[in-house]
């Protein structure tokens, strides 16, 4: 059996934010269709990984490597990383005043199409699929014609991230605390969408503390981030243990 290289390959990633080195050496592999949960205490650098991979200007990669489907991510500008199939959700998605949601998503989608040498979307076709996606996520259709995130609550903004995710269909998705601000139904919708995309081959890195959602997601692996490195790799059991005893105890358990 041939060994296919992982979809995402991160080696010894070192990231500085301002004066501080937040990630010292992070390495991980994710295969298509795999779902990895990333856990860590506040300030451990969970959000940093996503932002660094996405190419946020404030996150300086000082060393290491990141390949997405063999492509050197770190050499690409942010929009090209996205077009290569990377989706990173924002912890606090900003608003884009005056720009309607459907225009925004359609522009993004067409950019992806262009990168793949495909024709731009017909506006009507797009609207039909957008409405369908909104319905599946339990979102009101009106959300499509509102300016992006303008006046949206935190939970609504997270749902908007999901809407974009479902329409953009990336190869690799990093979800950063997507459950925050969401009720039980919202979380159920997240899980349903994630599993659907996963079955279609999308890989996921999910940053979360919320055990209920983690359980529902049935992760392939659970990683604990500590002091800027992956301190521990495990499965669902690791997540349960962390939920029971917290991060300090988890650290001690390892050291023991």
């Amino acid at each position, binding site marked *: 059996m041939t060994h296919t290289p992982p979809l995402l390959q991160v080696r010894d990633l070192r990231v500085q934010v301002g004066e501080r080195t937040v990630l010292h050496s992070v390495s991980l592999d994710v295969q298509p269709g795999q779902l990895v949960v990333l856990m860590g205490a506040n300030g451990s650098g969970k959000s940093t990984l996503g932002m660094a991979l996405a*190419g946020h200007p404030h996150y300086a990669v000082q060393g290491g490597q990141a390949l997405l489907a063999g492509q050197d991510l770190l050499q690409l500008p*942010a929009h090209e990383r996205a077009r290569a199939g990377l989706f990173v959700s924002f912890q606090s998605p900003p608003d884009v005043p005056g*720009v309607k949601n459907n225009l*925004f998503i359609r*522009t*993004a989608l067409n*950019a992806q199409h262009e990168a793949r040498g495909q024709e731009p979307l017909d506006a009507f076709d797009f609207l039909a699929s957008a409405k369908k996606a909104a319905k599946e996520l339990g979102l009101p259709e009106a959300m499509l014609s509102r300016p992006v995130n303008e006046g949206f609550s935190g939970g609504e903004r997270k749902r908007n991230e999901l809407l974009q995710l479902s329409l953009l269909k990336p190869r690799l998705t990093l979800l950063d605390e997507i459950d925050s601000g969401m009720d039980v139904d919202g979380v159920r919708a997240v899980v349903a969408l994630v599993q659907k995309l996963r079955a279609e081959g999308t890989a996921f890195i999910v940053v979360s503390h919320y055990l209920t959602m983690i359980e529902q997601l049935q992760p392939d692996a659970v990683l604990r981030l500590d002091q800027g490195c992956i301190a521990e790799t495990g499965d669902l059991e690791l997540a349960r243990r962390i939920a029971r005893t917290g991060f300090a105890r988890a650290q001690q358990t390892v050291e023991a």
Partner: protein
Amino acid sequence: MTSQTATLGAPATSQDVQPVQQAPALEQALARPYQHGFVTDIESDSLPPGLDEDTIRAISRKKKEPEFLLNWRLAAFARWRAMELPDWAHLKIAPIDFQALSYYSAPKSMKDRPKSLDEVDPKLLETYEKLGVPLHERAALAGVAVDAVFDSVSVGTTFRKQLADVGVIFCSFSHAVQNHPELVEKYLGTVVPQGDNFYAALNSAVFSDGSFVYIPKGVRCPMELSSYFRINAQNTGQFERTLIIAEEGSSVSYLEGCTAPQRDENQLHAAVVELIAHDDAFIKYSTVQNWYPGDENGRGGIYNFVTKRGLAAGRRSRIAWTQIETGSAITWKYPSVVLRGDESNGEFHSIAVSNHWQQADTGTKMIHLGKNTTSRIVSKGISAGHAHNSYRGLVRVNPGAAGARNHTQCDSLLIGPHCGAHTFPYVDTARGDAVVEHEATTTRISEERLFYCEQRGIDAQEATALIVGGFCQAVLEELPMEFALEAKALLAVSLEGAVG
């Protein structure tokens, strides 16, 4: 349409902006080359440079003007000579040598006015093709009558007959002087008096041509009226004069769009536009201005010093100014409305873009005189490069203006760390029952928003266009359909290379 030699000194840093990390793509070329930069090579029949009484008599004679108009010009000239250059604006203007400009220029082939487009010099028509104004095609498809002004002489008028059927007069100003002198004499200078300001006085003395529109009682003009201009010969000031009169119960929508060729010397454009709306009349005046803005080092470019004013003379009359200003080295204009009639209404919607080394000091004046008058101001200023953009607005409520209401929304968007946005709002009210609301915001295109777009696959340039479009949405919605699409494209082109 779709697209001074003095250096302006060290750029002032914008007062509200923290230096932003320059993303790599910011280094993209400053603007595409001005796409309308070319010169039609037809000989011009111009007067030599210089300005004195003889020049004015020569202009008037060339245009075969009646005596009253020559006298009016001469009176204006006398006033102008006694006036001083205004210098209160937030602008750095290289000195203009008024004696070095030629005040009249006509293409040779225009000695006899053509009676139809077939008689127009093909080279001129080619000019309009290049400008994106294929007269016959556009007229046929869009149903828009075009009065094309080439330098100082009108070239042709389309649809004059069709408009005449409903009694609408739409022609060049010169034509109106010949054929409707009584109307010109009645209204000229009643909204912008000769002595109003330095440049209006100059214009009144040496104005070349422009548009004349008269809408009779009760007539809704069946099509949008449009006009195009060019400055062609070197060192020629363009002094356009436009007069629009809307009688009781009538309405008209007028579009003004400009282009100009690439030049090394600054060119002066000092136009005057007067609008008069009688009882229950409505005049909408929309402008897309794309004059040559100067090169990326701030050299050359048009000086656009314009006086535009509307008189809402009648009861329930309404005047709406909509402008998209992206060109010119220096823009200095305040399209205003005098709200004399009871229950009259004035509106001003504006997008002003300044990039590279452009400067703009623009805004509006809403003068509330009658009872229960209303005005609305929406100003969107976008600054990029080393440009400075100032909003200057006046809302005045006179002692007799009971029940006056105004709302002003004045927003500035800054792109990059070297530009400036300035606001000079004046509220001058003599009444306690006036309701005057002013809201102002100053924002940057935030890094976070840009990155958000990029993370979804939208590159910085397109993201800027999206965000700017969103910022300007309220004004874009006010534009006539024809202009709205051009305007969006024009905004995008004007800001190319401004952000990374």
